[in-house]
């Protein structure tokens, strides 16, 4: 891999000596396009948010530097500073406004502001209206003018190279892992203490800044700016580059940019020979190609290549590193979680009705009840996933009522999901490392400059330890999506453990597990309790719960039916009638295991 990179870098360095001036300026355009497309791969491919307005960011940067250098005679480097400041600020404002919106609203609004910004360029007197600004000075490096495209070439490709390395470093970092998990939903990210909105905004600003660099290079490479290259049409072309190259791969940006621009050149050369109305066919041909691409190769060129070249999974154990600092666990028997009079209403329906219970350090408490008893709602209330109508939750002596799910997670409450939320395209190790998100601090800039390596080594050593703890270390580098469902549930526990939790809240961990797997899970949970972790478990499987827990809380129809030791609860006639249906609502058929267990107890 290293040899390939050296060959590519050497080829890029030597290219201007071999190819003519036309070829060099095409390569300059490809490099500039690749910068914008790289931003889109990060934003759309990684973050799942599409922008039809990247050309507008390119335009803001190009006009900023053009205006500063022509009207005020400033140096292009000052122009770069202004260009980046303006694109960054614009992206921050637009992103803060639109990124909270669901899927399609964001891209639609990008069309609107993309159009508006391009329209503004053509209507502002100071920016030369539709004629634009010309005579932009070339970039000077140490007194040497980069007016020649061949000199500019090195500047462009240096930026491209740096941008790629930066983005690659970011993706391989703490923030990058969370970014790659963005498609898993906000709830997943909040459960590991990450802020999805902030991650999206970071990606959006990063993509805009890359477009800003491209715009600055564009202005000083072409020495002239006018509104048309910053139109929505051109934004679509950038998106086409990213899709054609492959949104799932950083190199896709480069491949896509080269592919689209070379194709465009060929089309411009060939079509006039076939028809006198070549220019009119160009748009049609391009649109047609784009649609065919979406139909047949949505993964782009790199997606096709990746299918051929199956990467060998790495097997190495991460290097040893000093362990991450751990929380001090409360002494055995101290209250960890106290729920007082919790109420949750959905309109007229009271899903949780004045429920109180507590969980003390070092015990396993089971929350059980027939279907529709309000267990899952209760679970969502105490993890902060749903806001409570009334009542109070105290965690480690602190009132956490009304705190966000993320805040509660960072205090030391880790959870798993009833419907497994893993990132199928990330390795087991990465998935578990995601759990340690809130235990380290490195941000995007430190990650991009590779200043976070010591911290990352600690994270991976911790993730490895947790994988060993659940017995999956030998498969650490496989994709999480390749695991059977039962094993995925166990993996979620490892991810929760990587957060170094005080309280582990498990949502039906035994669902879908075979008997042997259940036994193994039970042993694991007992071991965890012996290590001092407190566990609250919401479960359907009576047999499993009865053998495992220290104490049970039973819910029915939203209220607490009772609590106590497993044997007491089993003997309680009210619990039996709730499960067997005497006097209550008939028990649903899928509660069969519960029915058997309760029946067997009599």
């Amino acid at each position, binding site marked *: 891999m290293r040899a390939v990179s050296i060959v590519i870098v050497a080829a890029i360095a030597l290219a201007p000596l071999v190819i003519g001036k036309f070829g060099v300026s095409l390569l300059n355009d490809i490099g500039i396009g690749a910068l914008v497309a790289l931003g889109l791969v990060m934003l*759309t*491919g990684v973050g*799942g948010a*599409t922008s*039809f307005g990247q050309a507008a960011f390119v335009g803001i940067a190009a006009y900023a530097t053009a205006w500063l250098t022509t009207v005020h005679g400033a140096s292009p480097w000052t122009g770069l500073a202004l260009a980046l400041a303006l694109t960054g600020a614009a992206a921050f404002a637009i992103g803060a*406004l*639109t990124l*909270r*919106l*669901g*899927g*399609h*609203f964001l*891209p*639609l*609004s990008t*069309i*609107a*502001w993309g*159009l*508006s910004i391009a*329209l*503004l360029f053509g*209507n502002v007197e100071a920016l030369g209206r539709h004629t634009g600004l010309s005579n932009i000075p070339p970039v000077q490096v140490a007194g040497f003018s980069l007016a020649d495209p061949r000199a500019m070439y090195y500047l462009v490709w240096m930026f491209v190279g740096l941008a790629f390395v930066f983005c690659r470093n970011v993706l391989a970092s703490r923030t990058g892992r969370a970014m790659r998990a*963005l*498609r*898993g*939903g*906000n*709830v997943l990210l*909040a459960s590991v203490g990450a802020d999805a909105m902030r991650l999206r905004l970071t990606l959006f600003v990063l993509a805009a800044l890359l477009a800003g660099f491209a715009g600055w290079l564009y202005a000083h490479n072409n020495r002239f700016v006018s509104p048309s290259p910053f139109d929505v*049409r051109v934004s*679509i072309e950038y*998106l086409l580059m990213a899709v054609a190259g*492959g*949104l*799932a*791969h950083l190199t896709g940006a480069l491949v896509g940019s080269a592919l689209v621009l070379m194709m465009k050149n060929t089309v411009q050369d060939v079509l006039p020979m076939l028809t006198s*109305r070549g220019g*009119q*066919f*160009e*748009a*049609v041909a391009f*649109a*047609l190609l*784009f*649609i065919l691409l*979406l*139909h047949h190769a*949505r*993964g*782009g060129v*790199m*997606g096709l290549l*990746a299918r051929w070249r199956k990467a060998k999974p790495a097997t190495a154990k991460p290097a040893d590193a000093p362990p991450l600092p751990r929380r001090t666990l409360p002494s055995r028997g101290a209250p960890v979680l106290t729920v007082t009079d919790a109420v949750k209403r959905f309109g007229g329906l009271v899903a949780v009705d004045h429920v109180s219970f507590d969980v003390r350090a070092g015990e396993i408490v089971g929350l059980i009840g027939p279907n529709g008893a309000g267990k899952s709602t209760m679970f969502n209330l105490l993890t902060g*996933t749903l806001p409570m109508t009334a009542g109070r939750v105290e965690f480690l002596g602190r009132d956490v009522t009304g705190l966000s799910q993320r805040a509660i997670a960072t205090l030391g409450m880790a959870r798993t999901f009833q419907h497994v*939320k893993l990132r*199928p*395209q990330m390795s087991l190790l990465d998935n578990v490392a995601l759990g340690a998100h809130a235990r380290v601090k490195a941000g995007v800039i430190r990650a991009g400059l590779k200043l976070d390596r010591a911290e990352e080594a600690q994270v991976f050593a911790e993730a490895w330890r947790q994988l060993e703890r659940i017995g999956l270390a030998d498969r650490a580098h496989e994709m999480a999506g390749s695991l059977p469902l039962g094993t995925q549930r166990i993996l979620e526990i490892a991810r929760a453990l990587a957060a170094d939790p005080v309280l582990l809240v498990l949502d039906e961990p035994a669902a879908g597990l075979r008997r042997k797997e259940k036994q193994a899970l039970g042993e694991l949970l007992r071991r965890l309790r012996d290590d001092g972790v407190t566990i609250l478990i919401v479960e359907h499987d009576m047999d499993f719960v009865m053998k495992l827990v220290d104490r049970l809380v039973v819910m029915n129809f939203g209220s607490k039916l009772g609590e106590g030791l497993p044997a007491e609860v089993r003997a309680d006639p009210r619990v039996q009638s709730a499960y067997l249906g005497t006097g209550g609502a008939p028990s649903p058929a899928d509660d069969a295991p519960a029915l058997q267990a309760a029946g067997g107890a009599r």
Partner: protein
Amino acid sequence: MTWDVALILGIDGLANGAVYLLAGLGLVLIFSVTRVVFVPFGDVAAFSALSLAAFEAGRLPPTVGLVLTLAALTVAVEVVQALRRGEAARIPRAVLGWGVLPALPCLLAWGVAGQQVPHAVFIAVAILLVVPVTPLVARLALQPIADASVLVLLIASLALHFLLSGLGLLFFGPEGFRTAPLTTGALTLPGGLPVSGQVMLMLGAAVVLSAMFFLAFERTVAGKALRATAVNRVGARLVGIRPARTALLAYGFASLLAGFIGVLVAPVMTMYYDSGFLIGLKAFVAAIIGGLVSYPLTALGALAVGVVESFGSFWSGALKDVIVFSLLIPVLLLRSALAAHPEEEQEEIEG
């Protein structure tokens, strides 16, 4: 600005808004049934305007060529697919539905072009001519990826817009046209303010068409199938509603609305092959106000967009579009304030 000017601008704005209202209904209809944000909607409207212009000039509208080309392509795709699946028996149906049916309005156009017929006939045929366009392009470009994510569909739909506007340039040429006025009459409001018949017609058409739209949705089985699909695709499928069929219905209905829009605006606005894009986009602003799901909010939003545009053009003709699009900002702010619930999982990306 005096009250008179404000009143005139307001009425003009409502007339524009009526057009965006119809377009917005079409967009919401398509989105709710198929999850496609149908960007080329405006292009279809432009095609109907240009068809009418061609009739008036005594020529056969180039739309005929466009529709027949699309129909031929679709039939080819259908036949190849049927043969691949070994369902050759379905070929005649496919040829009938995708080939013969779209050719009927073309035949009609060929019959009336250059003839001395009432203007209303031209209008009717111009509208009918574009009805097959949306279903055909949707069948070709969107149906094969109907299960893809909203984003992929949106990208495809945007590419489709560029394809259609490119085809528009090929078939209609770069010239702009304005059609004969639909009415010459004018109405004088109490207070002495004249309102042109054209404005009345646009407002009236919006009221009548949206009432019919409402009735069709509430009272017919097809309308109920559309609503069912919009509410719950899987559920609709379980009770025997075929999503591909309802999607086709939605596309056809939206195409009809686009046809009406084209002939309504053509007398007051010089239409080029690509004039439709901005109409469609402003209708989007309206649709976003309605959250892409609510018809009444979309209608209100459309009228607001029209009025803002009309006042905007009074202050700055060049920046009126910027003003309309910046209307999105308060709307989005409001929507993001209301979007309190955490988003659920997104689709995985391919590749």
